[in-house]
């Protein structure tokens, strides 16, 4: 039984399907990232999880308790919004206290003026203040408590939003692109902090992002969503090395995976550049397939070496590595190679080179985008 689960969620507006039979579950203490391009339905899914939106089908579970029909406030979920959604007129302390005050004080006790005379208000309030302070201290924002959101930086606001989510000790954390409004430096720093916070609290977290590197670096498991479907739900390494769909392969990894159109020949071999780069592809001879090869799995060799002849068309220096775009016969967009700077010092645009493809790394996809199973482990039988 998982700590939090979305099962078979579907949603459509008229004939426009937003979510199509989506299932995601988080085990206790697990960090799940939902990643996909904008409009893939990930934010809608998160809103459905929070109860702010409702699906047409499917169920939502908190442990063994079904919460599909429950009010957002009763679900014991906490959400961190992209815009932080802090109440602009309240101080950080008051912002963090809102969920507690709503839960622990009665309507009468919350009334302005009148509430002051209601029994039990002051003890509850003292307890709330205590909790707020503890949470704020753990996030190192206790010095900001009497500031309003307008007087804080983006990063500080983000922490207050986290504190507001944390203070209610929720059954699940929902985060909707919480880092996208931060500048690049702060984003990398805050990534680590959120992961750390998650480790400390152990609250299962569903984290929505459009940034694949964020998803891969933070999550225990990543769900890649496109067009309202989950294409793959697996640990980051699995997603990267063993994508089940060409769209997953294309979406994950930077620079993007190289895609080559090819056909199968006898015995399920796929030839590229005059060499068989893959063997054992199932299906009839002459099947159109797409080969995916990660840029770091192609090696640059000097011109004339054994391999695929290519011409350098562009070099992009990125510091620790260099992206080499090459022109290759039969590949429309050319192939991108990730190389170490020392390997390319002698190269310039127009230089002829030889490419050697790491055969273990060739991913074969069918015309429908799905991975094509290989008959046997892709053993190299033809010499490169």
């Amino acid at each position: 039984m998982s700590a939090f689960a979305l099962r078979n969620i579907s949603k459509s507006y008229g004939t426009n399907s937003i979510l199509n039979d989506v299932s995601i579950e988080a085990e206790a203490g697990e960090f799940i990232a939902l990643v996909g391009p904008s409009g893939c339905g990930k934010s809608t899914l998160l809103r459905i999880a929070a109860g702010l939106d409702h699906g047409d089908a499917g169920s939502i579970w908190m442990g063994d308790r079904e919460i599909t029909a429950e009010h957002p406030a009763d679900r014991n979920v906490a959400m961190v919004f992209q815009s932080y959604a802090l109440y602009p007129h309240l101080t950080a302390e008051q912002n963090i206290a809102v969920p507690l005050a709503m839960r622990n004080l009665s309507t009468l006790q919350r009334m302005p003026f009148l509430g002051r005379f209601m029994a039990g208000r002051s003890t509850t309030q003292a307890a709330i203040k205590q909790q707020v302070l503890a949470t704020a201290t753990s996030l190192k924002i206790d010095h900001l408590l009497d500031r309003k959101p307008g007087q804080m930086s983006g990063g500080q606001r983000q922490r207050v939003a986290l504190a507001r989510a944390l203070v209610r000790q929720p059954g699940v954390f929902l985060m909707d692109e919480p880092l996208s409004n931060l500048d690049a430096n702060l984003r990398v720093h805050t990534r680590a902090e959120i992961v750390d916070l998650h480790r400390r609290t152990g609250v299962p977290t569903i984290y929505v992002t459009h940034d694949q590197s964020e998803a891969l670096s933070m999550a225990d498991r990543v769900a890649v969503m496109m067009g309202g479907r989950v294409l793959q739900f697996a640990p980051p390494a699995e997603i990267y090395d063993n994508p089940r769909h060409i769209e997953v392969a294309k979406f994950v990894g930077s620079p993007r995976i190289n895609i080559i159109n090819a056909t199968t020949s006898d015995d399920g071999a796929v030839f590229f550049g005059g060499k068989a780069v893959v063997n054992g592809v199932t299906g009839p001879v002459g099947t159109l397939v797409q080969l995916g090869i990660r840029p770091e799995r192609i090696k640059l060799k000097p011109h004339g070496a054994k391999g695929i002849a290519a011409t350098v068309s562009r070099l992009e220096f990125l510091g620790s590595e260099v992206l080499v775009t090459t022109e290759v016969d039969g590949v429309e967009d050319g192939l991108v190679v990730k190389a170490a700077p020392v390997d390319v010092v002698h190269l310039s645009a127009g230089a002829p080179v030889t490419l050697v493809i790491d055969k273990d790394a060739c991913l074969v996809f069918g015309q429908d985008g799905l991975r094509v199973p290989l008959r046997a482990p892709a053993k190299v039988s033809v010499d490169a």
Partner: protein
Amino acid sequence: MREIAVSGPLPADQTTARQAAIRAARREERVAWQLAAPAIVLIIVLILLPTLAVFVFSLTNYELGYDDFQFVGLDNYIELFGDRTFLISLKNTAVYTAIVTPFSVFIGLGVALLIESETRGRAFFRTVYFLPVASLLVAMATVFQYLLHPTIGPVNAMLSMLGIAGPNWLGSSSTVLISLAIIGIWQSVGFNMVLFLAGLTAIPRELYAAAEVDGAKGSWERFRLVTWPMLGPTTLFVTTISVINAVKVFETVKTLTEGGPNKSSEVLLWTIYQEGFVYLRVGYASAMTVIFLAFLIVLMLVQYRVLDRRVHYT
């Protein structure tokens, strides 16, 4: 809806989700109705029904004080167009509007342009020109009555110093509309000015830089090339508002002239007020109100049409 079309029994969880969705939607709908209900009721009671009632009254010979009334069809309207007072009233309203609108719009624009390009005393001038908007019109009309007084008024005293015999501003049928229009202009320039100032600040500075680079050297050329076209929507809006406010002239007439002398300052709202609330001829006054309302609606429609067609800068 979609699920219902699917044949066969529905899985249990699907109905839960759907039910939750429907319940949540209904709850939201119910809350929305509750929040909007007071407003809806009051719009109906205070705006829609009275407007409808005006139409109905206009077809009757209803007079306040007499309980029974008959439907008389379009008799009131027919009578209206033979009514000398009403026709004079229409004409005077048109003349008043034709004087006040262009002056208050262009003076408002001129003052806004001057203030915008002048760095000294900006806040001071803005305050001064806006002051009449915040002042009680009835009171200020009284002041104007004194200023324009034929014998003891400072205006005529000043004119006589220049050797001009000042007219009996509010007392003579040839000058009364002009005098009222002067007060109307004085009162509305400030309002138009702040709207133009808002419009001017909304014009991106780069456009002026671009115009200058493109060779528009003088301030007139910059005005013609950038300011005037960019102010298009504001100007149209200010003009419409000015026309509507001019058509609604009432306070100054009631305070200063009561339609006189000899009906030469008889304006639409004053006539309606007299017929409806003094002579209590509700049916007849309602017919006038319908005409008045028709004017306003036509004006707004014209504005929407022009906005749709011509002004595409925003």
